[in-house]
């Protein structure tokens, strides 16, 4: 007798060699955790077309619902997550967001011969690597390239925020590098919108204290604090994560790791259960020590500018995050990233000059 959670009856696990959508031939299934977008509900495969185009296939894994004691709730959750991500990907594709990984195909069909026959899928453009592998294998990793990636990241998040979308799960493995474009430079794009918040469009994870990966969560989430203001809760959290990846790109370590290294053990988020308001002064102190101790590769002047950008992005008190010009403005969100993007552009250009002069 077979059960619904039996792998042999789950069509989503048996797509290798089949053709889906507009001629995409499915390759061997990726092992768990290998999917570059880190989905919560998915099985992933590489796909290719006869014209040489390659993609990344993400298939809804309904079997997860059958493994749960709360089948209906879980099924509802899974499908709602899938639909939310699919719709977001469609939107990003339609809006031609240049620094966000877009869906190039999606669809649903039944695969006969399996008890669990429905297949719901999204095909994404295929990245060369995530940024960690790109940096590890790069033959010319220098500050110019790191800042180029960072500029791409901030631009991508700004593109999302302009559409009232907060990513909520930004981390190095979700920042993907694509082959060189017309400018001859590799392009960094943000992937995995599976935990994103979209204003006016409810998603199951909207009520979660930590919607994304715990390890990369901003400090307010690590200390289990939920800001009442939605913009602070969503967009300011993204700002922190941009700053954290910025720190990773330049120093090899996330901001959370730096904070954890500077905050005394009894006040660390694993141990400290009192209110976030009480913890903020301790975090401010640890954050200041972090910025002071960061070993940065630029000139003193650029180091200062870069530290300032990190300060705007990663202030422990989320209500104080953001570029001062955006915060001063009477219109629009205080968390707008455009000024940060400009600042990063300036730093990147000056760093390029420094690298050129040094060589």
């Amino acid at each position, binding site marked *: 007798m077979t059960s619904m959670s039996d792998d042999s009856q789950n069509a989503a696990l048996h797509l290798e060699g089949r053709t889906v959508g507009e001629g995409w031939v499915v390759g061997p299934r990726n*092992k*768990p*955790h*290998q999917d570059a977008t*880190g989905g919560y509900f998915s099985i992933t495969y590489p796909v290719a077309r006869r014209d040489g185009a390659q993609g990344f296939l993400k298939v809804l894994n309904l079997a997860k619902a059958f493994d749960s004691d709360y089948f209906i709730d879980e099924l509802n959750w899974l499908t709602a997550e899938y639909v939310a991500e699919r719709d977001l990907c469609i939107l990003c594709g339609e809006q031609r967001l240049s620094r966000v990984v877009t869906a190039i195909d999606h669809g649903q069909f039944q695969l006969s011969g399996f008890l669990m026959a429905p297949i719901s899928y999204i095909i994404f453009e295929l990245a060369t690597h995530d*940024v*960690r*592998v790109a*940096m*590890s*294998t790069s033959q010319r990793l220098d500050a110019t390239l790191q800042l180029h990636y960072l500029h791409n990241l901030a631009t991508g998040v700004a593109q999302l925020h302009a559409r009232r979308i907060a990513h909520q799960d930004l981390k*190095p*493995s979700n920042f993907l590098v694509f082959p060189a474009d017309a400018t001859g430079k590799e392009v960094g794009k943000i992937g995995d919108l599976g935990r994103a918040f979209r204003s006016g469009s409810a998603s199951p994870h909207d009520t979660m204290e930590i919607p994304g*990966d*715990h*390890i*990369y969560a901003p400090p307010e989430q690590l200390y*289990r604090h939920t800001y009442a203001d939605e913009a602070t809760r969503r967009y300011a959290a993204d700002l922190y994560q941009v700053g954290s990846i910025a720190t*990773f790109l*330049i*120093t*090899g*370590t*996330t901001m*959370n*790791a*730096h904070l*954890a*290294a500077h905050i*005394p*053990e*009894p*006040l*660390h*988020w*694993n*141990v*400290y*259960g*009192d*209110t976030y*308001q*009480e913890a*903020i*002064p*301790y975090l*401010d*102190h640890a954050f*200041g020590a972090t*910025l*002071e101790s*960061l*070993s*940065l*590769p630029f000139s003193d002047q650029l180091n200062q500018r870069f*530290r300032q950008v990190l300060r705007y992005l990663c202030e422990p008190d989320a209500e*104080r995050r953001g570029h001062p010009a955006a915060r001063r403005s009477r219109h629009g969100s205080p968390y707008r990233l455009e000024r940060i993007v400009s600042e990063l552009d300036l730093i990147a250009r000056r760093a390029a000059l420094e690298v050129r002069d040094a060589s």
Partner: protein
Amino acid sequence: MSLWNIDDEREVVPRWRSFKDTVSSGSLYPLTTPPRVDRGALSAALAEEFRRSPSVYVAADYLSALMTLRDFSESFDAVIHYLRQNVSPQEPLAAFVSRAATIAHPDTTATSEDPPQHRRQSRNLRIAHLRQRLRTEPGNAIARVDLALEQLIDGNLSDADRQIRSAVQLAPNNRFVLRAATRFRLSTADPDQAVRTLSDSSLTDRDPWLLASLIAAAQIADRSIPQHRRAREMLSSGNFAPRDVSELASELGTLEVHAGRDRRARTFFEQSLTDPNENTIAQAGWAAKAVGMRLDTSLLQVDRGYEARARASARVSDWDTATTEGLRWLQDEPFAIEPAVNTSYAAAFGLEDFQSALKITEQSLRIHPNDSSLRNNAAYAAANLGRLDLARDLTRGMVSFDDPNGFNAFKATRGLIAFREGNPGQGRELYQEAVEGFGSDQPHLAAMALGLWAIEEHRLGTTWAKTITNEAFRASRRADHPDADLVIQRLLTFSTIRHE
């Protein structure tokens, strides 16, 4: 003569140390513990990725995750090892790898016995560094408090006051800031402001560490304590760890001592000693005699228990230990008046180490230039060192004493100076006033004053020497006090030598 009235009133005022030292003292622990997270599960994907296809930045990401979770398991060591093998020491990542390794495996050979002020970095450097930090981090309340502490120790009260005000404004609901502000106000003789600062914070009603400080401050300010009932509720609620309510129980016990309700006081002190800190052990030591409680001497071995050990040693006239521990206490709280007054007494009276006593008082007079007890102890040490101009300067304009004993000791010191200046008539008059002032209420102090007077008469070889010596012997027998006995012993030695 100098003075240390060991049984003087004592409240459980909060300690004020640097942020780093305060954290390590345990007084900043949270009141609530968060739910545990499954750290292994959270980093499992990264662990698998590192195992399957390691590369420098995948390893760096994994190290970041483990550091974020403070998961210092075997995996942590493995990833550190990998990065040490694959990252050049010049890269920024290498610096973090070293730091992370140190955090995960701290040097356990370092001792915490030395008080915090034994740091190598000089005060000027620390002040300069904190100022520099505040230029880029004006909102850093913790750095402001640390700067205020350094400024206060440096005798710069007005700048310290500004920093404390800013810190309270920036972080009105932070335990470290509020307790430091309280201690600052108490040390600068402004207990009313201490009470206001704590009363204005919404945290005080919820945090027993702050409520204890508020009650102590109100007690010193001689103000009523509206939160008394709340404090009792906190103690009986069972909602707090014994460590968190130790100071509150101790302060309530102190209130009961003042009210003469010894049995209730004992109950509170017993509760305070369930999981005490060095402050509550010192308080229990202070209260033990008054309420008929026996303090387990093993408690005195508590980390940073300098005050408790200094006081306990002084009680049994172990002046060597009292001075050594007193100096540590002073290094722990260099801004505080109590360790300076008491340790200068232990050094000057107990050990006749007038050089050390003068040094202690001179340092503390920079912060408390008008403190009469301190000036008296300084003058006593200076006179014994033959620095009579300094001694006289120190006694000039001193009129304000909180208690008559201080005033009488001051008269005895002036008597000593007069003798040493070659004016025995005035010296006799002043010693006489001191002895009469102590009278039968303080027989041991009267005996000590007589003994010291007699030594001065012997020094000059006057006809008064024999009479005063006999009076000192009689007074000492009546007093039956080790301090008086010590003076008599010195008098005997001195008179024997003089007459040989």
